[in-house]
């Protein structure tokens, strides 16, 4: 009997595919965002409003994951951007391979933004890297303020929390300050934007966030390609 050390991540195959995609996106400066939230948190409506408000000339694509139906893709496709539904057929999350397979048909390297709407679930999608620049957690005020405490994994990994459906605040007992406090207890550096996809509240701030991240990514991509374009000196006599 022999025991051999393996020491590799269980999801190393997923991580490898994700890293490869990330390298490609980094080269061209496409900003990829992975939206994670419970079913009904308002991810699709939030993305619809985002697509409506993107400045003219913006290039973007949306992948939307669900266990069944093309319903979300149909909703999102009304806004003039390429959309693909990823039907997982039972799986509770998207993985990097599904994303790469669906990107194959798209000139995604020309996109400014790649929006990925994950399957509605606060647990499983957290473990799967999709090659994104940031995970964004969407929490609605129709849920409990203590979601960050109940599902710490995603709130720890998300860079931004969208506190959504704030138009409902007059009708629900949700305490915004408490939700913010819980989120910061789990992840002190998390950014928080309060939004309503119905009234458009908070979308100015959200579009600023998008632009800031996109410019940072473009600057990084430019630095990478400058480095790559340094002419290689041919040794004399070669």
């Amino acid at each position, binding site marked *: *009997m*022999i*025991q*051999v*050390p*393996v*020491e*590799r*991540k*269980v*999801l*190393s*195959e*997923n991580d490898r595919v994700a890293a490869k995609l990330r390298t490609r996106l980094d080269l061209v400066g496409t900003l990829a965002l992975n939206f994670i939230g419970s079913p009904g948190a308002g991810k699709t409506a939030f993305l619809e409003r985002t697509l409506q408000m993107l400045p003219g000339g913006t290039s973007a694509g949306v992948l939307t994951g669900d266990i069944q139906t093309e319903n979300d893709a149909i909703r999102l496709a009304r806004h003039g951007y390429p959309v693909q539904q990823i039907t997982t057929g039972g*799986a*509770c*999350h998207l*993985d990097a391979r599904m994303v790469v397979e669906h990107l194959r048909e798209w000139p995604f390297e020309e996109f400014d933004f790649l929006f990925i709407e994950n399957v509605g*679930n606060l*647990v*499983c999608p*957290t*473990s799967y890297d999709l090659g994104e620049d940031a995970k964004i957690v969407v929490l609605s005020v129709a849920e409990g303020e203590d979601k960050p405490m109940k599902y*710490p*994994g995603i709130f*720890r990994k998300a860079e931004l929390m969208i506190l959504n459906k704030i138009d409902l605040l007059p009708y629900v007992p949700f305490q915004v300050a408490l939700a913010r406090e819980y989120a910061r207890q789990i992840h002190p550096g998390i950014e928080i934007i309060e939004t309503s996809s119905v009234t458009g509240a908070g979308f100015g701030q959200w579009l600023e966030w998008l632009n800031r991240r996109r410019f940072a990514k473009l600057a990084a991509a430019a630095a990478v390609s400058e480095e790559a374009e340094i002419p290689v000196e041919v040794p004399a006599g070669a």
Partner: protein
Amino acid sequence: MHEMGIASSILEAVRKEQRRYPGCRPVRVAVRIGEFSGVSTDSLQFCFEAIVRDTPEEALELSLEPAGGDELDIAWLELDDDAEKPSVDQREVTV
């Protein structure tokens, strides 16, 4: 909830590792599970038993070790090196 996917990733990794040790049969694989990994150990154990059933790895045992953070790593693999080990002569014949 995604334990089925995790279980099949573990089995895939075992098969990959096993190829480096021809003639050895995998007996036990150890996986470290962080408390924040989002994986339920009971459910993972159940899924693993289900996916190895009726495969050459049917007897493969999954040993789960608690760990910190969101760790989800395969620690080691135990192989039976006496099993079906081809003798030098046999190998020469098959080449």
